[in-house]
């Protein structure tokens, strides 16, 4: 199998537009949570979310017009624009702009989303009901389909290699990066643009996830304190939005063109809980086997793990994941730092695994573990350092990122410092 490295990153997150601005704000301990003001929330149980900061593009704000012409934006859901923006940033960061037929066909795209264009589907439903089928836009379907994020990025940059997508709820971003890495490892592509995008901050998503009892509803008046993974007073996740995209590249391809290398993707594990549609199995077996498979693929013992970017959504499931990690690492628990960056950016659903894989790569690059905000009173005792409140400088050479999704779908990525 060929080796795969990360040579570029891009993201649109609740902490800002861009990888570095997000990362520095994350390390400062800033939260992206606020009360929703863009639509009516009075009748919704959850009235808060981690929204992307909008603006003219300066100071880390997101200006959609910089990434897609307004007349094109009108035809697609925001998740597609987020994906296009993050992919543009990632390709620029990697310095990869394929011009020849050979380079274009060697470069593929694999971007997923958990739900896709939810709000656009709702609006088209109203149009159908109120005005009839002749008023449903020809752009309704191509503007909502999840794989159209991959399609739009491919068209914009003439990337003619494998064009694929993933839909595995909150594991989407991690599965996309893992699967894309395999396409490179197996020789189907030399470069892959991979990740996830999601735009779920709308009434129907807040209503639906509230009905699943998944969202925090206790801190509508104190939004930045609402996402509190591992804390005994946590009561659900805070909805986020955005996109995370990495450029994955075959190692020799990257070296030959002198690309900078963030980290090597050395392990990828997948498993199914086969238990419940929304709840993880209480023994954490699915999570455990997923992490174990990723480490086995990496050929790295659990005792060498330095950092874990947890799935840690700020729900009851946090302690199940923690238990699975403790079982995995055994006596090595005390050397491991494990944090949930969802404490700062909320839960980006299908984009979460991709954004968090980027954080994991940056943790290796900068030897620093980002913090778990609001962890005032840990729910359970553990020897694992949960990095409460403040980022921790420490040596990080091997790191794992977990993502677990509705339906009992699990993904783990293992990244390693490239030296």
């Amino acid at each position, binding site marked *: 199998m060929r080796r795969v490295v990360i040579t570029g990153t891009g993201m649109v997150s609740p902490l800002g537009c861009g990888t570095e601005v997000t990362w520095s704000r994350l390390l400062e301990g800033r939260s992206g949570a606020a009360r929703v003001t863009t639509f009516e929330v009075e009748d919704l149980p959850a009235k808060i979310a981690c929204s992307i900061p909008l603006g003219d593009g300066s100071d880390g704000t997101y200006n959609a017009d910089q990434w897609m*012409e*307004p*007349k094109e934006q009108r035809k697609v859901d925001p998740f597609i624009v987020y994906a296009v923006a993050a992919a543009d940033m990632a390709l620029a960061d990697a310095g990869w702009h394929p011009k020849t037929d050979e380079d274009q066909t060697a470069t593929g795209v694999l971007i997923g989303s958990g739900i896709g264009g939810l709000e656009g589907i709702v609006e088209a439903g109203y149009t159908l009901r109120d005005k009839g089928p*002749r*008023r449903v*836009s*020809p*752009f309704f379907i*191509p503007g909502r389909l999840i794989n159209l994020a991959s399609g739009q990025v491919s068209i914009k940059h003439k990337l003619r290699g494998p064009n694929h997508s993933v839909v595995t709820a909150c594991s989407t971003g991690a599965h996309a990066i893992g699967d894309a890495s395999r396409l490179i490892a197996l020789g189907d592509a030399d470069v892959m643009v991979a990740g996830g995008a999601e735009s779920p901050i709308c009434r129907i998503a807040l209503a639906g996830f509230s009905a699943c009892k998944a969202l925090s509803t206790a801190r509508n008046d104190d939004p930045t304190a609402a996402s509190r993974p591992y804390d005994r007073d946590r009561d659900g996740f805070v909805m986020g939005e955005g996109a995370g995209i990495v450029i994955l590249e075959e190692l020799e391809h990257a070296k030959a063109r002198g690309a900078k290398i963030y980290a090597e993707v050395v392990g990828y594990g997948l498993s199914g809980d086969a238990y419940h549609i929304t709840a993880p199995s209480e023994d954490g077996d699915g999570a455990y086997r997923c992490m174990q498979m990723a480490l086995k693929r990496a050929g790295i013992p659990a005792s060498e793990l330095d950092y874990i970017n947890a799935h840690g959504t700020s729900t009851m499931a946090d302690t199940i994941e923690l238990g699975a990690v403790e079982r995995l690492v055994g006596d090595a628990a005390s050397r491991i730092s494990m944090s949930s960056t969802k404490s700062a950016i909320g839960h980006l659903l299908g984009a979460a695994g991709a954004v968090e894989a980027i954080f994991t790569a940056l943790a290796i690059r900068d030897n620093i573990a980002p913090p778990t905000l609001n962890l005032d009173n840990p729910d359970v005792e553990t020897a694992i350092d949960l990095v409460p409140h403040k980022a921790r400088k420490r040596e990080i050479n091997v790191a794992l990122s977990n993502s677990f999704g509705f339906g009992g779908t699990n993904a783990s990525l293992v990244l390693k410092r490239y030296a």
Partner: protein
Amino acid sequence: MSDIAERVKKIVIDHLGVDAEKVSEGASFIDDLGADSLDTVELVMAFEEEFGVEIPDDAADSILTVGDAVKFIEKAQA
């Protein structure tokens, strides 16, 4: 330019994101204004909505320019 022509022109400018001076009567949606086949479907829907007329598919297929649209709507409203 007639009121209908002005309104058609405005819809074309809004939907295709083109400069007003390009939207002449003889301008072809696809050849001159950068529309694709889906854009033209949406334009016809917008004309129907704006003018309260029905443009059947076979008629829509013959509306290729700004002038074609104006003529069809004038006739339909006459």
